């Protein structure tokens, strides 16, 4: 366990001059390649971000490390940083140029008409009229307004051209600190010039290095040899500030205003701190490492409330003076502080074993040694309004002690005390409540304090056998009594209420009780459980919810906050934000141990006593501290390339490898930091991790929000958090239009396939039908009774005349029928076959009509040999001619069959019968269809009054 250089002085001692802070610190890693010596300026911007202006560039503290800002001006180093009073951070360079931070960039500002003498810019500020003023080391002061630069040097009113610092006062005067005192410059709009006058008071030194204007209008100044002082504008007077240790001030390296308190950085003596500036009350700062105070260059406070200290060797960070750990090097025995009280002068009284100790400035006083028996101990101490100290003992009742007269008196059971074993004392409104191992008693303290009025509350019941740990009087004058095993008891207007197991208080041993500013009663139990009672219900909290610890020692409250002192440290619970922090390393303690609750509270301070430490908390300063670390999302890479966060955050489908780099800023205890991380759209719930990168290697399309929050404890309230929203687009083959097109194409293909198949089936069906019809027609024609009758009549007539010819005729008739049967199933036959069949038919008809029927077949040999024809086509046409025309002696039917290159022609002269044979037209149409189906060609019919001619396309075999 590490302890700090123990200093007897307390921050609490505000009313009597000097006292010291003892600040534990941690060193901070500087940017790589930068030594503390190379840091020219350190600045905390208006948002509390830390910046370092160095000889090698500008750095910003981002969570866990310093990040370099690329400078447009590589040759020069950073000589000034300021964003007063606007929120732009201005950066001055050693070559007389200056610029400002715009987003992630450092942009040079080039004022029109600026005659840059290449001397370092020492300070920049924007006044209330939005004029830009900058000062230089050697070329005076400049003012840029109305698009014009005004130069102010010794030739027009400035005391000296070497300006260290400029500051704007409440009345918009520009105070200029130089090698020759202070000028106050103002822009004179009527004269269109800047006028400067000398500060009309004598200052202790000509060289004025630093200026800072506080919130009350005092202008503080730090000198090369003249220490520190301030100018009061109300009465035009200068006041020197004395060094708290009465040492001479060295060169003032920095003056920093924080929450209207002024930090003084003195090159010789280190840090001093002024809490009430105009009262000249300073405190010096002592560090656990003495070297820190040597050559301090600058001190600032960050956005968490931590104090950063830059000296010539290193950069340090400290929690600051809000929580002081007070111990004393002179207390060399192993002390156990049981109790604590503060007197009117804010000095601290503690008890340890059987001694009363007053820690007062540089001295420690011991009282009451040997007054009680060695085995007894002092358990508690309170101070009444007459500055009489009341001490509870274990075994010997009460000790009443007057510190001014050193007289003491023992009050025990012989004087009427209910029990001699006092566990705690509570004082409120002249009523001293005594909690003992054998019940509760109150003593009325009158101005004449010799007379004691006891009230033993025996009406409460069998409390005389109960240990009473603590009594708390709330703002409504109700007494809350913590008992051992009997739960919490409330005494209100002589009525008694018991709160125990039936109210959900599982552990009925109550240690410490307090009341918050909403009127809720908070109490802790022996099983490290904390309860809040709002008047109706009890809320129960255990470790991890609003505190961390396995034992709760003491409770206290201040505006919106509950302080819970546990074995793990000081827990600060902010009721409004529902956040808590457990401080231990940060304030320089690790484990706290205590055997009894001991806390005292004044208007400004809360003090805890523990075995090893006295912890004094400044409520106001503590309120400037952040409860939790700040979170920053530092870098996002997609497929290992950094993402410009300011751009629209939509990524293509192939950009799916995301890495998020984030950090939590808690520089005092970085090892405590964990991160709640969730990628909304991917993760179901928040995850807690120590990693400061989150990798998502293969995100699919969709909308995402990356959320991260740094915490120092595992409280499950995760807000506010840092977030980054983005979307990953669908690939083109998942887009709706693409899917629609693909579906359409597929549908079209299926449709076309079905359609073609239907057509093909229809065609096949048609062919079958045509063929069947043709067969049927042909057969019908040939078995036509007329045909048979005519044929047989012809045959009969021939039989008599020429039996031989009759045989031929019959053979032809029989061939004719056989051929029909042979070819009827074929799609196409050769023209040659068709001709041979036709010849049979013609022979038959010739026999019948004799010279009146003159068929001629005049086809080229080539066509006969090499062409195809639907079977019986020629025969059908010949038949038609025979059927429809009159064939008589003077009406000869001539049928010509011939061909040209493309067609076979079947032509006959027309002698149409007067009573035409009924015709279905099936014959001709059938030929048409068959040509179409089997050859894809069309036949042509010429029908005139004289001629009937059918053109059949030649189908090549």
């Amino acid at each position, binding site marked *: 366990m590490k302890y700090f250089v123990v200093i007897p002085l307390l921050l609490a001692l505000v009313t009597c001059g000097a006292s010291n802070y003892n600040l534990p610190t941690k060193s901070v890693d500087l940017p790589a390649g930068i030594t503390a010596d190379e840091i020219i300026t350190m600045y905390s911007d208006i948002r509390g971000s830390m910046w370092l202006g160095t000889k090698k560039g500008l750095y910003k503290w981002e969570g866990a490390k310093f990040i370099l800002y690329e400078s447009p001006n590589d040759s020069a180093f950073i000589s000034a940083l300021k964003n007063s009073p606007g929120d732009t951070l201005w950066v001055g360079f050693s070559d007389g140029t200056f610029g400002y931070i715009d987003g992630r960039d450092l942009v040079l500002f080039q004022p029109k008409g600026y005659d840059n003498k290449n*001397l370092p810019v020492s300070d920049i500020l924007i006044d209330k009229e939005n004029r830009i003023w900058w000062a230089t080391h050697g070329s005076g002061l400049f003012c840029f307004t109305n698009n014009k630069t005004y130069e102010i040097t010794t*030739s027009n009113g400035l005391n000296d051209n070497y300006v260290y610092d400029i500051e704007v006062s409440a009345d918009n005067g520009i105070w200029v600190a130089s*090698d020759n005192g202070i000028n106050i410059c103002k822009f004179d709009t009527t004269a269109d010039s800047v006028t400067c006058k000398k500060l009309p008071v004598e200052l202790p030194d000509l*060289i004025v290095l630093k200026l800072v204007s506080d919130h009350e209008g005092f202008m503080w100044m730090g000198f*090369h040899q003249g220490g520190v002082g301030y100018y009061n504008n109300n009465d035009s007077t200068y006041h020197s500030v004395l060094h708290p240790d009465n040492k001479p001030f060295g060169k003032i390296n920095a003056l920093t205003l924080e929450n209207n308190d002024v930090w003084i950085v003195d090159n010789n003596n280190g840090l001093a701190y002024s809490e009430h500036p105009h009262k000249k009350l300073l405190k010096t700062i002592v560090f656990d490492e003495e070297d820190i105070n040597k050559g301090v260059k600058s001190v600032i406070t960050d956005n968490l409330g931590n104090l950063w200290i830059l000296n010539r060797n290193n950069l340090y960070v400290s929690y600051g003076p809000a929580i002081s750990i007070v111990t004393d090097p002179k207390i060399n025995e192993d002390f156990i502080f049981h109790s604590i009280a503060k007197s009117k002068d804010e000095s601290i009284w503690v008890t340890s074993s059987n001694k009363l100790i007053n820690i007062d400035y540089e001295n420690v006083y011991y009282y009451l040694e040997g007054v009680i028996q060695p085995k007894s101990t002092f358990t508690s101490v309170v101070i009444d309004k007459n500055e009489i100290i009341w001490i509870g003992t274990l075994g010997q009742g009460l000790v009443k002690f007057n510190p001014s007269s050193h007289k003491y008196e023992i009050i025990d059971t012989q004087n009427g005390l209910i029990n001699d074993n006092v566990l705690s004392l509570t004082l409120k409104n002249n009523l001293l409540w005594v909690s003992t191992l054998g019940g509760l008693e109150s003593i009325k303290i009158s101005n004449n304090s010799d007379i004691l009025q006891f009230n033993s509350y025996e009406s409460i019941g069998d409390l005389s056998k109960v240990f009473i740990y603590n009594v708390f009087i709330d703002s409504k004058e109700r007494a809350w009594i913590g008992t051992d095993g009997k739960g919490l008891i409330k005494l209100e207007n002589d009525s008694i209420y018991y709160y125990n197991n039936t109210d959900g208080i599982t552990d009925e041993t109550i240690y410490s009780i307090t009341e918050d500013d909403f009127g809720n009663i908070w109490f802790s139990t022996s099983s490290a459980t904390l309860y809040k009672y709002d008047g109706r219900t009890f809320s129960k909290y255990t470790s991890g919810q609003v505190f961390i610890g396995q034992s709760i020692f003491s409770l206290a409250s201040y505006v919106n906050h509950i302080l819970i002192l546990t074995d793990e440290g000081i827990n600060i619970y902010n009721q409004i934000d529902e956040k808590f922090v457990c401080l231990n390393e940060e304030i320089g303690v690790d484990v706290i141990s205590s055997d009894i609750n001991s806390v005292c509270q004044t208007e400004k301070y809360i003090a805890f006593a523990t075995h090893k430490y006295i912890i004094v908390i400044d409520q106001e300063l503590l309120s400037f501290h952040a409860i939790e670390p700040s979170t920053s999302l530092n870098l996002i890479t997609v497929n290992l390339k950094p993402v410009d966060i300011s751009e629209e955050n939509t990524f293509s489908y192939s950009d799916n490898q995301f890495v998020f780099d984030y950090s939590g800023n808690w520089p005092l205890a970085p090892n405590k930091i964990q991160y709640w991380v969730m990628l909304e759209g991917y993760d179901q719930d928040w995850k807690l991790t120590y990693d400061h990168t989150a990798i998502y290697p293969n995100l699919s399309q969709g909308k995402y929000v990356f959320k991260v929050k740094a915490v120092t404890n595992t409280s499950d309230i995760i807000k506010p958090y840092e977030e980054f929203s983005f979307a990953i687009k669908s690939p083109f083959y998942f887009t709706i239009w693409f899917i629609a097109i693909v579906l359409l194409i597929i549908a079209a293909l299926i449709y076309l396939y079905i359609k073609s198949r239907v057509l093909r089936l229809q065609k096949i069906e048609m062919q079958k039908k045509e063929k069947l019809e043709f067969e049927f027609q042909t057969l019908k024609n040939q078995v036509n009774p007329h045909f048979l009758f005519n044929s047989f009549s012809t045959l009969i007539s021939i039989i008599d005349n020429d039996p031989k010819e009759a045989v031929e005729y019959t053979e032809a008739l029989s061939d004719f029928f056989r051929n029909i049967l042979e070819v009827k199933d074929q799609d196409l036959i050769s023209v040659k076959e068709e001709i041979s069949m036709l010849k049979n038919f013609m022979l038959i008809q010739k026999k019948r009509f004799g010279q009146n029927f003159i068929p001629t077949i005049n086809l080229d040999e080539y066509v006969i040999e090499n062409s195809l024809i639907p079977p019986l086509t020629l025969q059908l046409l010949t038949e038609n001619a025979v059927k429809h025309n009159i064939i008589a002696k003077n009406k000869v039917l001539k049928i010509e069959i011939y061909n040209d290159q493309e067609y076979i022609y079947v032509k006959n002269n027309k002698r149409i019968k007067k009573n035409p044979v009924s015709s279905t037209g099936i014959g001709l149409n059938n030929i048409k269809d068959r040509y179409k189906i089997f050859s894809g060609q069309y036949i042509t019919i010429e029908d005139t009054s004289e001629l009937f001619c059918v053109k059949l396309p030649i189908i090549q075999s």
Partner: protein
Amino acid sequence: MNKSGNRLYNNSIRVEKMKYKVNITNPLLLVIICILLSANLMGQDIYMTLKGSVSFVSDAPLEIIKAESSNLNGAIDLADNRFAFKVEVKTLKGFNSALQQEHFYENYMETEKYPYATFQGKIIEKVDLGEEKPQFIRAKGILYIHGVEQERIIQVELLGQNNSIKIKSTFDVSIEDHNIRIPSIVNKKIAEVISVEVDAILKPKK
């Protein structure tokens, strides 16, 4: 402002410009000293010396080294509150051995490259020669040693006496600040901070 005043004003601008410009100091400084010394108008305000004394002491754990030069050139212009001083490093004599002196010149101070040490700038306080007691004034300027410039404010004890100015000053020079590298083997023989003492009587420029 009369003619000479303008001239001095111009001089002062030149002095200002020299700051932060490394390695051109020496020739410029010579020019300035020449101008200061040759400014015959208002000559009663310029005081100078060619024989001032500079000494240093290095008080290291293992050895004390002392050396002194009486060749300090310097000038003070009371009209403008400016000053310039210069010494050639090789005029420093003393040391504990000839070898030590050689090391000092060649290795530590690198007199081949940087033959002079200078200090020039302005005087913060107004000098009152009528004052009978010694005055403490601050000289602020650029201290140029071993090619490295450092802005310094050095306290000086000044006494006006018999139409002359007596000055005396002791100040520290950190060898690290001036980039003077000492081999680690002799580390304990040479102090990290050298104490320098200046003592001179400046007379009016005739």
